[in-house]
């Protein structure tokens, strides 16, 4: 490796990107290239906090049983949401005037608590919650050794959370964190386990005639501009820029028998695709 000492006073190391600002659009486009998939046989399953775990035994036990059966055939990376406690700490934090980065840091504790509860229930299968500090780097090792692992679904943004477009609620929550992890590790599927059958064309609680959307693309979903979505809205942006995971599925965890078909890639809820070709 030759160091480059042409006289601009900076001591460069020879590389394709030498001297570049990394902000030039043409240079950026030149860095597009295929990516290796680290864990192509693993599945990421996000278990909802408010939708599943907050419901206690009634909603959680049947799903845990379904997860335990699935572990016999699939390697699972389970993310958890923070649920009602996160909403509560947001409300106190907002009242105290704390910024989004602090709220994001606080939220991790609730998802982590839920990860430990799920880990306690799945401990007989060798599946436990892994501390966030070591989770990312050691994930391939853990998932080789155990049929599944659990993490707090939140991404490690904390104080570095992005200020959202509207209000102050942290935009990257546990759905986003679970998706980003799957994308980086090139996992087979991403399933968001909620307490609704999927995305409806209207709010089914207010409109009994609302229809379930079986499959939809990011662009179509953006066009519909639905007032609420059953997952973090930033997920649409993240899926739009995905290279490896080009779809995710929202399923109803109150119907735990849907989990295994979802892991096999069957449509049992709403599948959101990056674009029509995926």
């Amino acid at each position, binding site marked *: *490796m030759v160091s480059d000492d042409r006289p*601009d006073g*900076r*001591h*460069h*190391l020879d*590389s*394709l*990107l*030498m*001297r570049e*600002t*990394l*902000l030039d*659009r043409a*240079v*950026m*486009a030149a860095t*597009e*290239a*295929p*990516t*290796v998939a680290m864990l192509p046989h693993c599945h990421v399953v996000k278990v909802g906090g408010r939708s599943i775990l907050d419901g206690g035994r009634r909603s959680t036990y049947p799903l845990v049983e379904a997860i335990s059966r699935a572990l016999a055939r699939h390697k699972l990376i389970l993310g958890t949401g923070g649920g*009602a406690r996160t*909403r*509560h700490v947001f409300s106190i934090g*907002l*009242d105290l005037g*704390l*910024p*989004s*980065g*602090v709220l994001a840091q606080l939220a991790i504790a609730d998802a982590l608590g839920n990860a430990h509860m799920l880990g306690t229930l799945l401990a007989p299968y060798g599946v436990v919650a892994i501390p966030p*500090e070591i989770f*990312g780097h050691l994930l391939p090792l853990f998932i080789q050794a155990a049929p599944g692992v659990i993490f707090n679904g939140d991404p*490690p*943004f*904390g*104080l*570095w*959370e992005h*200020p*959202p477009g*509207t*209000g102050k*609620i942290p935009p990257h*929550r546990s759905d986003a*964190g679970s998706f*980003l*992890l799957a994308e*980086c*590790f090139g996992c087979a599927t991403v399933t968001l386990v909620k307490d609704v059958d999927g995305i409806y064309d209207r709010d089914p609680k207010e409109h009994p005639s609302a229809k379930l959307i079986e499959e939809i693309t990011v662009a179509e979903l953006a066009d519909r501009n639905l*007032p*609420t*979505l059953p997952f973090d809205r930033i997920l649409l*942006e*993240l899926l*739009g*820029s995905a290279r*490896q995971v080009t779809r995710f599925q929202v399923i109803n965890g109150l119907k735990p028998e849907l989990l295994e078909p979802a892991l096999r890639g069957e449509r049992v809820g709403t599948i959101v695709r990056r674009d029509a070709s995926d």
Partner: protein
Amino acid sequence: MLTELGAALVAGSLTDEELLARTDVPATVRILPEANVIKIGGQSLIDRGRSAVFPLLDELVANLPDHKMIIGTGAGTRARHAYSVGIDLGMPTGVLSVLGTFVSMQNARMIHYLLARHGIPFIEPAQFPQLPLYLSERRAVVFFGMPPYTFWQPNPKIGRIPPHRTDTGAYLVSEVFGTRSMIYVKDEDGLYTADPKKEPGATFIPSITVEELEALCLDDVVVERSVLDMMKNAKSSRSIQIINGLVPGNLTRALNGEHVGTIISG
């Protein structure tokens, strides 16, 4: 519940724009309103070695009695090398983010050792709870500029390079702590209509808004684009200044609130 909003947050959807809009009040507290965030460029400053770094650090130290400084570091040419090799090997963006973090950490350590005799610590993200104490006691800390996203770094829209790098990490520190300034120390006077190192005819832009800057659709800009995106949503950090750290006195003047480079405002 403490408030009606709290009840709505527990029962409602966090994707509901009307509900989210209600979370804008009360106003955000500025946690460290007297501190300044200073980002020292990697390729632009640190890769030049002592001729650029020593005078800048002397100026930093001279300002300690008057200003509290949270000093972040860029990555520079070794990150460009790691990204180049990593892209060729098929590394995903999240892994490239880890590599960039390592390089900006090397630079933070070097700056830290040069400032160590003034009692200034280097803190990693896990040590940020000690930041207020260090600022009170020693008036400055050094941190690595990369945000700690590691494997969770979102993909860029184009290419594979992590979109949120050291400019963004430093900016978000200024935003979350509500600091009085965000100063980027680079080796150009500020923003130009093109990279002045490649196009000598590029025109200097002394001040501009994010909207005006976006309307120019420049192919190359002096600060990461995600900083500009985030400035539009910022609650506290609405203005940044890019200065030439090779010119003695510029940092002092910028810390004193003077306009010496390019000011970009949200």
